[in-house]
């Protein structure tokens, strides 16, 4: 066991997890913004926006994330010349964030829409009655309540996002799952312990997020 700890200390495990956390942070923010816009499309009274929103969600939600990530590194970058930086590592990181963002935006959108469903129809009617146009009633009346009702499903999407950051390994981002494969390759005598270490690391990251989501969903729930 002491030997194994020495082996562990030879690898920058915290640094690799830090990459996953950064991926989660940026992709989470961008996906939440995009997802909110999509949700507004989907609840808007304009049929073409409705259609655009539901088409996006249905296509992206049903495309495997691995394929989106591989598309980024095998088509977007070399063929379509989408480049964020000359430095490969930086470029691949942002391609990874882009892939995670477009994929998870669909899930954030649906989580938010489930929150919208918790807002009684009377709220929207009252907003219309005092003369608020759609954008104002969404911004001032519907969405604030929808967000508070959607904390738990939003938390679930964030947790899924954290774990899905390992998929960007397929896009050449040096995060924990690539480091894990490297460790398995070099230290084949500790295969089980390496898997266990990486799994425990994720539990340590994910459990607090889950607890926070549960706490906030109770704390912020709109009492009716």
């Amino acid at each position, binding site marked *: 066991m002491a030997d194994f700890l020495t082996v562990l200390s030879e690898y920058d495990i915290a640094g690799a997890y830090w990459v996953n956390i950064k991926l989660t942070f940026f992709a989470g923010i961008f996906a939440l913004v995009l997802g909110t816009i999509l949700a507004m499309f989907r609840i808007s009274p304009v049929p073409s926006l409705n259609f655009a929103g539901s088409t996006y969600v249905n296509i992206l939600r049903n495309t495997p994330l691995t394929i989106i990530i591989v598309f980024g590194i095998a088509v977007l970058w070399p063929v379509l010349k989408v480049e964020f930086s000359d430095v490969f590592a930086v470029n691949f990181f942002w391609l990874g964030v882009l892939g995670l963002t477009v994929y998870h935006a669909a899930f954030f959108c649906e989580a938010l829409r489930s929150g919208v469903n918790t807002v009684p129809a009377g709220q929207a009617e009252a907003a219309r009655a005092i003369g608020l146009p759609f954008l104002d009633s969404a911004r001032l009346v519907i969405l604030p309540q929808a967000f508070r009702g959607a904390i738990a499903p939003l938390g679930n999407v964030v947790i899924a996002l954290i774990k899905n950051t390992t998929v960007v390994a397929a896009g050449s981002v040096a995060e924990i799952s690539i480091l894990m*494969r490297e460790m398995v390759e070099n230290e084949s005598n500790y295969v089980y312990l390496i898997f266990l270490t990486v799994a425990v690391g994720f539990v340590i990251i994910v459990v607090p997020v889950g607890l926070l989501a549960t706490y906030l969903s109770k704390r912020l729930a709109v009492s009716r």
Partner: protein
Amino acid sequence: MRRSRLTMVAGVLAVGALALAGCQAEPGGGDGDTGGENTGGNEETDGGDGGGEGLTIGIKYDQPGLGFKDGDTFTGFDVDVATYVAEKLGYSADQITFVEAQSANRETMLENEQVDMIFATYSITDTRDEVVDFAGPYFVAGQDLLIRSEDAGDITGPESLDGRNLCSVSGSTSAQRVKDEYAEGTQLVEVGGYSECILQLIQGTVDAVTTDDIILAGLAADEGSGALQVVGAPFSEENYGVGLPPGSPLCEDVNAAIQEMFDDGAWEAAVEANTEGTGYTPNADLNPPTLRECEA
């Protein structure tokens, strides 16, 4: 109406489940039940040690020229050596079950005795030696570079990669080694499989792909257009061994079979047959290699 639709859904699910179960059962799963029944009559004709049951051998499925699954058949140098060794151990070709042994799974498959032996570009290293047994080595490969033929004069070895881009599969340490030891200024792309590396190499986003030379030769031959070639200046030594479960009694016999393969010319024929048309020849100083002593 509602009920009949439910029944239909249930029916579809049941058929799906059956189909999945069928898929799983077919490859024989490993060393157990399926082998035992159909080989009862063969025992007298066996060469000796093997006994009547089949032999399960782990190979790579995705390395053309080494271990490659082509429809229902398996081709490559690893497969040829495995078949030869199995034959010397008293197993005919139809008693061998090939299963896929991906790099990350190899030790686990051996420790759990899911396979009897592994021929899967399996380099003998100290850490692996601690957990599994090795027979062989049956081949010595070296890390090398695969480049576009038009760069042949410019890229002559890992040192000339400064300022160029290098591709490898994620989790393999070969690209990192080039960056650390030979060319600080190289940028790495790590993707899921070598086929993606080949794509990037042809598209020009990377200038070289690195891994063991014999694997690269197989990839170049598989690509087929002649646009890619191996540099031919290997800068490491990888001893491909036969992975055996810890404490396996087969080591001595496998070594004897490999030695016989070296001596009777079958080894050379297998190398030639599997690297034909690639212009690749194994390092003659190191091949065929000297076998290691088996652990007592």
